[in-house]
């Protein structure tokens, strides 16, 4: 990500502007990238790491889980880990094996981390500023299928804090809950539903940890029906967590079970068939019809 500017050109121009001491390439070693970032944080720096692809973040899992997430605790609060790890995430670009993973559950399940999942360019900007400023370690999952979608927005970072969801589209008949690339897909689903006279509310979670349960539950309390959509596989996906929390908090307001539209419980498939794996508009609308029909 130095001279090349990154395989998705995300860091293009940064090294020229800020110099080789602050923007540099490392040897090909993901565990090494995260481990040395921990050390740099101990020395008082604020490192931003880039892992090239979601599927390559796994060699660094040990450093993330065993050390990054626990270092503040291990030192009883004396050491801060203001480390941000940017990971291009998710499918939809026809990539080879290991280039379409959605690993958010592994990170969300690790106490001590924050997990941020922007849905597009404007959100990525605001949330990345907030993530870098955060004193805790942040896993920043960039939806790579959204890298080329341009958006206009007010580039004023403001006092954005992690842990706030947004209502991407208001509606009354049911709530779609998503993050990352699927938030945009849910907005498309809502637009399609509107053609049929069904008004869907879309919640873009923005961060998974800390989760803005208040906004999510507030929406489901109003609509009474919820569908969670994520690319990651079904079993133990973060949709299960949201579903459980909704059951615990708004059970009496639910008119239907919380449904999930997700990737299947298979390894992320080959590019030729990935469209069949990722939640399609039809699969989302089918689930919406199920919750509309219930009871």
């Amino acid at each position, binding site marked *: 990500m130095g001279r090349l500017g990154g395989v998705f050109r995300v860091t293009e121009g940064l090294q020229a502007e800020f110099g080789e001491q602050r923007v540099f390439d490392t040897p090909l070693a993901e565990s090494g990238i995260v481990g040395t970032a921990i*050390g740099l944080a101990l*020395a*008082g720096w604020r490192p931003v790491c880039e892992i090239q692809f979601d599927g390559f973040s796994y060699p660094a899992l040990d450093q993330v889980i065993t050390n990054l997430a626990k270092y*503040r605790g291990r*030192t009883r609060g004396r050491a*801060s880990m203001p480390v941000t790890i940017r990971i291009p995430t998710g499918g939809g670009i026809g990539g080879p094996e290991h280039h379409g993973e959605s690993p958010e559950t592994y990170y969300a399940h690790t106490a001590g981390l924050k997990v941020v999942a922007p849905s597009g360019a404007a959100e990525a900007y605001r949330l990345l500023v907030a993530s870098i400023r955060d004193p*805790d370690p942040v896993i920043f999952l960039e939806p790579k299928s959204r890298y080329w979608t341009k958006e206009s927005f007010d580039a004023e970072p403001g006092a954005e804090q992690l842990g706030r969801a947004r209502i991407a589209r208001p509606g009354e008949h049911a709530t779609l809950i998503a993050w990352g690339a699927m938030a945009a897909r849910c907005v498309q689903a809502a637009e399609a539903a509107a053609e049929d006279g069904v008004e869907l509310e879309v919640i873009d979670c923005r961060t998974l940890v*800390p989760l803005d349960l208040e906004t999510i539950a507030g929406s489901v309390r109003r609509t009474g029906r919820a569908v969670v959509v994520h690319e990651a596989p079904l079993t133990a996906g973060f949709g299960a967590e949201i579903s459980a929390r909704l059951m615990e908090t708004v059970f009496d307001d639910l008119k239907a079970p919380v449904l999930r539209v997700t990737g299947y419980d298979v390894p992320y498939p080959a590019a030729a068939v990935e469209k069949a794996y990722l939640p399609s508009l039809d699969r989302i609308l089918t689930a919406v019809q199920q919750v509309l029909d219930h009871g």
Partner: protein
Amino acid sequence: MSSPTPEQERELYRLMALTRRLDQEAVALQRQGELTAFPPLTGQEAAQVGSAYALEAQDFAFPSYRELGVAIVRGIDPVEYLLAYRGDWNGGLYDPFAHGFGPIASSVGSHSLHAVGWAMGAALDGGGRAAIVYFGEGATSEGDVHEAMNFAGVFKAPIVFFVQNNQWAISVPLGRQTAGPIHRRAEGYGFPGLRIDGNDARGVYSTTAEALARARAGQGPTLIEALTYRVGAHSTADDPNRYRSPAEVDPWRAQDPMARLRQQLDDEAFCAGVEAENEARVAEIRARLVATPAPDPEEMFDFVYAEPPATLAAQREGLRQSLS
């Protein structure tokens, strides 16, 4: 190469003697139920104290889990160190930044990367500081140690990799751990590596001092392989008689680092005085440790995040209610 002065030699002996005495006391405390587990360092006093004594105040030492000797030299309160082995707090209770001595690292080898990162950060700040990282020959089999040395070589990080080759990784002997000489791996990473007599306190001190000076001056990493021997068990839960005979250990008892330095000092009055001092010090440490109250379970919610999120506060309240 700078040899220690006579006064420094006496100080080395004082620190090594305290380390040995306290190390023995910790094993006793475990047998008495005051500590849950403890990994003794018997036989490695020179390797730890000799190297740590060469550190300056602005340097940073990254220990693994057996470096009580390094902790003592750095001025850590032994009670705050040992309470980790009572199960009070993973990593120890001391402030790493107060004495430049990192938390106890139980994950074998993974802390080597943190040390390299710290060294890279120190270099970015303008140099003049060095890191030293401690691990055993067993850790050199872990991938993270390879990555750490590779990063250190590429970035010319100001770091000393101090490998205590005590020849046993629990029950795995050196020959089963690695087929080649550890110190020569450094050549592959582009920096000097040397093997030294880890039981010669003066030699350990001189070599480490020189390596640290190189690092502080911006000349990059050094790998020091200190050949020593783990005379005791891996930990208080281990019985080495199950995998090695006492006869194997005897030649190394004859190379005891304490006895060797004692002989070099040739001052029995001084050494006797040190022992008396240590009895008093260790008794005080024992008393304080035993008197420390058990930790509050609610502490497990402290220090997870800079600001605890709402969900965590709710869980803490749940624990409080279940305990009351």
